[in-house]
């Protein structure tokens, strides 16, 4: 029969769809980055953006008036913010893909199941009650404690979520969402309580922690959060084979040689690190971790290596694009970026639920 001909087609289809989606995601990310640098109160032509980068890479800055001003705007104001949105978007999307792999459930978005909210609660607790204890340290060192606190918050909530919602390696959609909603509600209540008890100087607004913003971006914040993001990116790519096998079931993954206990623990720690760091620099931003992995499973396929690579690129692109909208749509005021991602993501979530309602028991 045609087996010899049809199978290579199947495999190459599998690889080709991965490569194409990753390439498209990469191009979209580049476009989003240039747009984010070009767009703002001062509009700068994309070509000038590229020119200023050319200068910056050569270690110089343009000398004439307008270009000098543009260089300041781009390199000192918009670049840190853009780098932050790229990293946070990448971490939320990759974290979502890994969390969904561990829970074997496509609806496990870190924000939806309370993991991000718990990170925010831990961060707020730290700022109000813990920060004074390390304030004497150099700010870079003391700064590390914030993402660390957020990491612990998301770690504890993810472990709790897994313990409660998963029974014999299986997580029903209902159990996952009910448990996640309860954990999220508790953490949000805690956040609200701490913020309103605290003095105004200690915290930015409540909306930063609940709806997110990339407004406070600076290089020090990025440097502090970067190791957490890199751990998630590198670690999750290493775990991709195990996550693929886990889709067969926990026992089946063990049968093909995966140490499933280690896989689950490592995945949960990595997700907590990435999501915790993301929340510590930009608050709770929802739906990126839901929409991006789902779109990529349809285009790149569910094998985790291309999926996670695609998530890093496309997650960065979507959050960067959302941030452009957030800071321009009501200029000079800023809309919280989580509002923009929710406007994009919530209808998508409803569509997913509607399409799968038989499987979800509706």
């Amino acid at each position, binding site marked *: 029969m045609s087996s010899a001909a049809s*199978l290579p087609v199947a*495999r190459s*289809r599998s690889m080709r769809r991965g490569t194409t989606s990753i390439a498209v995601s990469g191009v979209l990310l580049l476009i989003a980055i240039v747009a984010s640098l070009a767009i703002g109160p001062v509009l700068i032509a994309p070509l000038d953006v590229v020119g200023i980068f050319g200068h910056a890479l050569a270690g110089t800055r343009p000398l004439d008036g307008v270009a000098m001003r543009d260089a300041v705007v781009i390199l000192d104001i918009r670049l840190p913010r853009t780098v932050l949105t790229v990293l946070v978007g990448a971490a939320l999307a990759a974290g979502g893909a890994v969390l969904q792999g561990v829970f074997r459930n496509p609806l496990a978005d870190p924000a939806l199941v309370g993991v991000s909210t718990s990170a925010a609660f831990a961060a707020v607790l730290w700022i109000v009650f813990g920060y004074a204890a390390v304030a004497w340290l150099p700010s870079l060192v003391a700064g590390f404690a914030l993402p660390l606190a957020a990491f612990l918050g998301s770690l504890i909530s993810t472990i709790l979520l897994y313990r409660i919602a998963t029974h014999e390696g299986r997580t029903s959609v209902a159990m996952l969402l009910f448990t996640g909603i309860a954990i999220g509600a508790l953490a949000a209540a805690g956040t609200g309580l701490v913020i309103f008890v605290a003095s105004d100087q200690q915290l930015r607004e409540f909306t930063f922690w609940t709806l997110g913003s990339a407004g406070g971006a600076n290089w020090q914040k990025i440097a502090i959060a970067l190791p957490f993001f890199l751990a998630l990116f590198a670690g999750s790519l290493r775990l991709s084979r195990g996550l693929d096998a886990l889709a067969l079931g926990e*026992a089946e993954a063990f049968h093909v040689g995966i140490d499933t206990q280690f896989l689950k623990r490592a995945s949960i720690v990595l997700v907590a690190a990435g999501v915790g760091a993301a929340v510590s620099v930009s608050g709770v931003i929802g739906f990126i971790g839901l929409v991006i992995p789902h779109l990529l*499973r349809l285009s790149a396929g569910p094998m985790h290596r291309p999926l996670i690579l695609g998530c890093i690129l496309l997650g960065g692109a979507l959050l960067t694009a959302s941030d452009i909208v957030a800071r321009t749509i009501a200029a000079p005021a800023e809309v919280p970026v989580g509002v923009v991602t929710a406007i994009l993501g919530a209808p998508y979530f409803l569509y997913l639920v509607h399409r799968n309602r038989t499987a979800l028991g509706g």
Partner: protein
Amino acid sequence: MYAARAVSVSVRGKTLLDGVDLRLDPGRVVAVVGPNGAGKSTLLKVMAGERRPDEGRVELDGRPLAECPAAYLATRRAVLPQSIDVVFPFLVSEVVSLGMPPSLTARECNLLVERALDAVELAHLGARIYGTLSGGEKQRTQLARVLAQVWSRECTYLLLDEPTSSLDLAHQLVILRLARAHAASGGGVLMILHDLNLASMAADEIVALKGGSRIASGRPSVVVTDDLIAALYGVRAEVRGVPEGPFLLPQTAQLPD
């Protein structure tokens, strides 16, 4: 050598296995039969290393199974589970590739996936989304995945939990032929079967379980008797010895009065 020695498993006071011995040697096919709830799947899970026995132990190559890491076990035995659910929209060819070692090149991987799908007569469905297959096609895809693991890692032992349960007659025979072929090439096969006729056709040894205990074992022609069927299932049926080995006419089966 792969053997369970006096393994017992109980869950919340209910005994699932009670001091069962089982030995699987290269070159042989062993079929485990018994009524629902006899402990067949539990025994397979204990043999696979997926479940630790409360008492007794399993040994593989002279080592206690509990000491073998998952990665080593995957090179010695492959397991076909009853569950055929896969989350996320994987292609059939991707599912088959999940049991192979990471050291394989893409080309070797492709060839083995192709061979395995061919063996279960699914080569034409490699590019389909797994979730869109019928139950029987899913079961055969899972078997192809297990075969790809066996061939790529040169596993000696094959553990199959009801490999024929959702298959038509022709594909049941394909599975039995694959099991025999694996034994003929020096492997050992342990399979749970509900159909005594299939078990009699394919197995060198039949092990009958009831209530967590082994109540009979031996060559099919010796073990499969009217008395065994009465003891196992509580039904009376006539076992006859045509054409080779015993067979049972389900038409002759009667529930007790």
